[in-house]
C-alpha cells in the first residue's frame, strides 16, 4: 500500500467516529428533551 493510502487508512476511522459521536449525542438530547416535555424520567 502506498504511503498516501496508508495515511488515509489510519485517519479515516476517527472521522467516522466523529460522525457517530454526533448522531449519538443528538439522539440522546432528543430522548432527553422528549422525556422532559412528557414529564417522565429519561429512563
Amino acid at each position, binding site marked *: *500500500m502506498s*504511503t*498516501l493510502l*496508508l*495515511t488515509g*487508512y*489510519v*485517519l479515516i*476511522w*476517527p472521522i*467516522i*467516529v*466523529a460522525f*457517530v*459521536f454526533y*448522531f*449519538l*449525542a*443528538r*439522539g*440522546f*438530547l*432528543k*430522548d*432527553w428533551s*422528549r422525556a422532559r416535555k412528557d414529564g417522565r*424520567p*429519561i*429512563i
Partner: protein
Amino acid sequence: MSSEEMAAQQLSGPVTIFLIALFFGGTLFMSIMISKKKENADGYMNAGHNIGFGIAATSMTATWIWASSMYASATAGYTYGISGPIHYGLWGALMILFIYPFGRRIRAVAPRAHTLAEVMYARHGRSSQLMLAGSNVLGSVISLTSNFIAGGALVAMLSPFSFTQGIVVMAAGVLLYTLWSGFRASVLTDFAQAMAMLGAVVVIIPVVFYAAGGPGMFETGAQNLTPQQSNFFSSDAFLNQGAPYIAAVLAYAIGNQTIAQRLFAVREDLIKPTFITATIGYGATVIGIGMLGVMALYLGLEPMNGDVNNLIPQMATTFLGPILLCVFFIMIIGALASTADSDLAALSSIMMADVYGQNVAGRKKADPKTMLLIGRVTMIVATAAALYFASGQMSILDLLVFVGALWGALVFPVIASFYWGKVTNVAFTVSTLAAVAIFIPVRFEMLPMDTPVGLVVDVLSVVGVGVVLGLMSFGFFGLKPALWIGSIAALITAPFGIGFLHDYHVLSGSLVAYAVSTLVCYLMSFRNKESFDFALIKKRIGSFDSEEEPEKALDDNAPKH
C-alpha cells in the same frame, strides 16, 4: 526501538486519583439522579422495554466497546500488520449487525422478556434455559475479569499505583454506581462513557499518528513488517484472526446477555437503527484504536515486558502530552466501566429471572423485593469473583476466542428454536452438549490430526462454514437463499479446506461446534410431528412486579418437550 528508548511518562499519584474520582464520581452522580427509593425488579433488569434511540444506541455502542477489545485490536494490528485491526474490529462490529434480524424475531415472540435464557425456558424447559444461562454467566464473568485486568494494567503502567490497586479501584467504582439501580444505571452512564470514549478516539489517533512521525513512518518503518504483515489481504491475518471471528460473529451475540438485555429494553420499532448505529460506532472505534498497534509495528516498538496488552498504554505514554494522556486514561476507564457495569447488570438479571424467578421461587411466587436483593448480592459476588480471577492476569485475546467458539455450540439450537417449531428440549440439550464435547478436543489439539480423525474434523469444519454463512444469510434473506448460500459456501470451501483446516485449531474447533450442534439438532428434530406454538412464549413470559401477568404461569404450563 525498545521500550526503554522511548520516552515514557506517567500520571502523578494525585492526578490519577483526581481522574478516577472525577470519572466514578460523575457516573455515581448520574446514577443517584435516576435512583428510586423503591426500585422496580423489572426496571432493574430491562428499564421498562421502552428506551429511545439515543440512549439505546449509545448504550449498545459503549457496552460492546470494552477495554479488552481496544487492547485486542491493537494486538491484532501489531501481530498481523495492517489488516489485523480489520480482522478484529470489522467482524466484532458485524456481530451486532447480524444479530439484529434475529433480535427482532426474538422480541416479537417474547416482548416482555428479561433474558434470552428465560425465553428458552418458555420455549423448551429447564435444561435449555440453564445451559444458555450458564454460558451467559461464564461470558459475563470472563468479560468482567478481562475489563478489570485492562484497568489494572492501565493503572500500573500510567500511574505510580500497582496492578492490584488498579483492579480493586476499578471494581469498587463500577460496583458503587451500578449496585442500586442496576440496568437503568448501566444504560444511562453508558452515555457519558461513550461520549468520553468516542471523543477521545477522534483526537488521540491523529495526534499519535503525527507525533509518531506521520506518513513518513510508513517509509522508514516498512522493513519492520514481514510480507504478510504488510499485505492488506494477508492469509495469516485471515486464518488466525479473521476467520475464527467470522465464525464467532453470531456466537458472541447469542452468548452475551448484555446484548439480549438491550434488545429487550429498546423500543421495539427502534431495534434496527439502534443496532446499525452501534455496528458503525463499534467498528470505527475499535479498528481506529487498532491502528495504534499498526503504528507500533512500523515504529519497531517492543511491548513492555513482552506483554502485548501494554502496547496501547505504551503508545499513549510515549506520544501524548499530559492533557491528552489524561483523556486517554478516561477513554480506557470509560471502555472498561461501560462493559463491566453491563456485565454486572446481565449477571444480576440472570440470577433474578432465571435462577430465582423461574427455578427457585417460580414465576407465580417470585417476590420482586427478594429479586432485587438477589440482583444486588449477585453484583457483589460477581465483582469479588472477577477480582480473584483478574489477579491471575490471563491473555485477553485467547479468552475471547475460546469463549466465542464455545458459544458456537449454542447458536443453531437457539436460533432454530425461534423459527422452527419442531426443535425439542432434548434436541437442544443433546446437540449443544455433543458440540461442546467435540469442540474441546479439537480446540486443544487433543486428537491425532494426522489420522482419519483429521479428515473428519476437516469435513465437519467445511459443514461448519456452510452453517455459519447459512445462518448469517437466513437472518436477512430467509430460508431458501440461506440454504443456497450455505451449500455453495461449503462446496467452495471443501477442496481448499479438506486436508488443511485442522491445522488451524481455533478456527476448526469453532466450525466443528457449529456443524455438530446443527447436524445433531436437525437430525433429532426433523421427524418430530408436533410443532411448537410460538404464541405461547408471549403468554408464558410477563413482568415480575407489574399488574401485567402472563396469561398462564409457567409453573402451570410447563413445556412438554
